[in-house]
């Protein structure tokens, strides 16, 4: 699984990355967490504000920090697909 955090490196982006890491650790799944800080790449996803979190190419949230629990729910949904 590939989890991308879109953002220019602000505190909210860092917190989102932290929550994603905790979610992955707690679920014990094999996931790659990538920080995307280049504006061009962020724009390609169509997001209008950051931070944003993308799981396997699908933007799950934009403009707010997702809670660890929320991220865990999205990961579970993806793994069940």
């Amino acid at each position, binding site marked *: 699984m590939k989890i991308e955090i879109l953002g220019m490196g602000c505190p*909210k982006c860092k917190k989102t990355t932290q929550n994603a890491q905790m979610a992955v650790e707690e679920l014990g799944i094999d996931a790659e967490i990538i920080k995307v800080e280049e504006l061009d790449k962020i724009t390609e996803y169509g997001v*209008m*504000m950051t931070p*944003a979190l993308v799981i396997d190419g699908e933007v*799950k949230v934009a403009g707010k920090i997702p809670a660890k629990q929320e991220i865990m729910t999205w990961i579970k949904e993806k793994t069940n697909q």
Partner: protein
Amino acid sequence: MGECGCNNTKTRLIYSCSGCADVGEIADQVARKLTRDGYGKMTCLASISAGISGTIASAKGADENITLDGCSVACARKTLENIGVKPTETYILTDMYLEKGKTSVSEEIINVVSEQIKHGIVSRTQPKKEQENNKNTGCSCGSC
């Protein structure tokens, strides 16, 4: 892209129906003008219809979503509602005294509509009938 969530500024996204009629074109131009004026950020309605997850997530995460529709078919508003987002403000240009098929797409009209939206002169919730009633109680010049 709009902005970083760390700015703590309100995110106001603007969607226009951009329909093929004159009023649709005006809605489109007004959305672009409002963006240029810094009132909000125009974003692609077509992208929402196409199911692009980034645009949908942005609509769901924005503080305010404003829809501009040329006519009462209200495609922009309905497109947002279809993804479960209730627009904060909705404007229908034919409720603002523009006639579909009979309005020229001029800079003057674009400016007037933009200013009305920016200054809340025309209420989003005020249907045409109410506006007509209110008109009777205001200035008697008949042209404003």
